[in-house]
């Protein structure tokens, strides 16, 4: 399975009823035979979201967007972060699925975002029909047509009064798309993030970086 599909697989959290995991003896923690094989095996805190398995993360809530909403989001995410010679388009890295994960989360802020996102998708389709003919939905439009709509909603301060809410929706999707994209290996590579790798030693910044800020 790919990283994305494994990560987002919905799993039911079973209340574990494993044996007590307490250790209390003469051995260091790592050598104790009663130590749990994974944190979620611990009956004190089995599988709760306040003690999740950090090594095999799961998303414990159900997704809620339908197929058409996901298709529309994929088109919008790719308009925001298209493919180029450095990195793929956002939907290739699951950005639209991340929006679904986000708006389906059981927290107050995300539940508000869900209203904004679902409403925004309906607005996009309605606007597509208004501009380009009855029955047209956002996904039916050419990239040029999609761009024509998004140019009107991509910057909140300049958006016309009738576009203000749609502009708020667009900015939310832009933020979520960027979060989804740049937190992947491919997105990090696009930015030139070269860390998260063990080094034998640590030295001063390279000369070209020091020169860049005028320190040499």
């Amino acid at each position, binding site marked *: 399975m790919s990283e994305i599909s494994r990560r987002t697989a919905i799993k039911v959290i079973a209340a574990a009823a494993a044996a007590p995991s307490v250790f209390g003896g003469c051995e260091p923690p790592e050598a104790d035979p009663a130590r749990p094989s994974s944190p979620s095996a611990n009956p004190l805190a089995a599988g709760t979201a306040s*003690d999740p398995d950090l090594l095999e993360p799961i998303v414990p809530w159900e997704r809620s967007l339908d197929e058409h909403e996901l298709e529309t989001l994929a088109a919008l995410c790719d308009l925001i972060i298209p493919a180029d010679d450095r990195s793929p388009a956002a939907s290739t890295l699951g950005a639209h699925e991340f929006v679904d994960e986000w708006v389906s989360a059981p927290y107050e802020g995300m539940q508000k975002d869900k209203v904004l996102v679902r409403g925004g998708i309906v607005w996009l389709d309605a606007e597509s029909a208004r501009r380009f003919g009855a029955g047209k939905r956002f996904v039916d439009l050419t990239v040029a047509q999609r761009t024509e709509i998004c140019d009107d909603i991509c910057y909140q301060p300049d958006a016309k009064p009738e576009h203000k809410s749609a502009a708020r929706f667009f900015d939310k999707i832009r933020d979520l798309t960027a979060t989804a994209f740049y937190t992947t290996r491919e997105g990090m590579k696009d930015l030139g*993030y070269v860390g998260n790798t063990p080094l034998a030693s*640590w030295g001063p910044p390279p000369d070209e970086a020091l020169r860049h800020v005028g320190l040499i």
Partner: protein
Amino acid sequence: MSKAQENYDVIIVGSGAAGGMCALILAVNGVKVLMLEAGRNYDPVSETPMFQLPSEAPLRGGGTPEKPFGFYDATVDGGWRVPGEPYASAEDTNFLWWRARMLGGRTNHWGRISLRMGPYDFKPRSRDGLGFDWPMSYEDLAPYYDKTEALIGVYGSNEGLENTPNSSPGVLMPAPSPRVHELLAQKACRERLDIPVIPAHLAIMTERQDADRWPSELFPNNPLAQRVVGDSMRSRAACFWATPCGRGCSIKANFQSPTVLLPPALATGNLDIRTGAMVREVTVDTQGRATGVHYIDKRTRIDEHTSAKLVILAASACESARVLLNSTSSRFPDGLANGSGLVGKYLMDTVGAGVGGQFPALENMPPHNQDGASGMHLYMPWWLYKEQDAGRLDFARGYHVEFGGGRGMPGPGAFGGLEEYTNGAYGQRFKEEARRYYGSWLWFDGRGEMVPNEDSYCEIDPEGFDQWGIPTLKFHWKWSKHELNQARHMQHTFKDIIEAMGGKVTSTVHEDGADAIAAPGQIIHEVGGAIMGSDPKRSVLNQYCQSWEVPNLFVTDGACFVSNADKNPTLSILAIAWRASDYIVDQMTKGVFT
């Protein structure tokens, strides 16, 4: 598993900085110790998500009410709320109480910033007439700072600045080279603001410990201690300059109680640990001496009692105060060790305020690795001693500056707000703008000293009850003008630094300190609640963390703090706990606690 060992010399409540240190020092000296930890067992070696990407975690690793510092943060069943373990705040108080229900407590996720309190910090009342003096001096604790730093591994440098003590030669590990934005800040502060920017001190090993030298220096004439501490030091690797310390460290390069203190303590054979043991109260005999503790076994939900000759509370400042206040009896109706009425009183947190900036000089930076030691390599110690002495500041005490940003691993929220910088870019232009702006934001945070006051305290909530049937805490809080004015001063300092570096301020600079200051408890440096002193009527403990009223009862965590200097408390908690433990061993050797 736990041996059927009935006759413990000492019960330690809590397994974090204070509990871990006491356990190690007592165990290597042959004292039989039972440690009770309210949370679950936790093993950083096998449980730490070292290289996992945010994209592998729910919500890209972002914070939730269950995991406020993000999915990968090394906090189990904790944060601002613990399931089934509530607390209350008085009206107009929004105290935030961070707890972690796990072996090692908050030492697993902490910031590793390890600054010594200086000579002034022990005698604040003598200097400005506010608060209280400690019943010990810097010279009393200095040897324990040296020993603690050598034991846990701390990087830093000796700069000889006012009230910013040097360590003894050879104690500190080399400080890592600064990152480019840290150098930029250093230059601007030196040339334009006269603010010192020096290597930070963090409990992260930049090289392996000298396991042939330190065990014999730290524990002379103690072969058992030398063996277990030597083995522990040999098992730790130096930092490999990747992965955030807040997740914990599977190679044991940073300090966590479960990797540094508890393994050697357990290796002596003198320590047993019982997890899932939530202590309710300390019991006393007819002479008023501590006999043991009642705890709830979280697996069975049954109240258990265990006995020892001596009890050490190291459950964290507020939790230890809670245990004392809940230890009522006909002899001690107001709680144990509370003849002074000061248990729960004089709670202090750190004054926190921050300002962000965006820096054109950092845009389009040539790609290079800026992960480093994960925490900061440089910081600004408090520097305005002369201005304060001259009466030119409208607050007492000082703050230091922590700062960070740059080209770290992108996390949730990466490029949120790019709309305003780019007039709403999307498409190919968005990708190009993201490359340009990545790493060009920095954040500056003040960490300052709060003066203790009568209105900041915790008490037992008459209506509160947690899921273990234990009465809960209610918090009261008031900031004085010193804290509020200090928070305002911080904000103006950060604005000056940002502008001196050629940057633009990206957050609000508040004129009213009340709008700038972090909520009480939010900096997670809460101390006090069982202050030490030299007068039994005006303090709970003596300078060795020993209760004035119950001589075989000690409180070695942050509760004993008399003041809360701008030096983050963990290093001092460790050093004070070691000093108290030496005193306990000495007294036991003399046959005092039989």
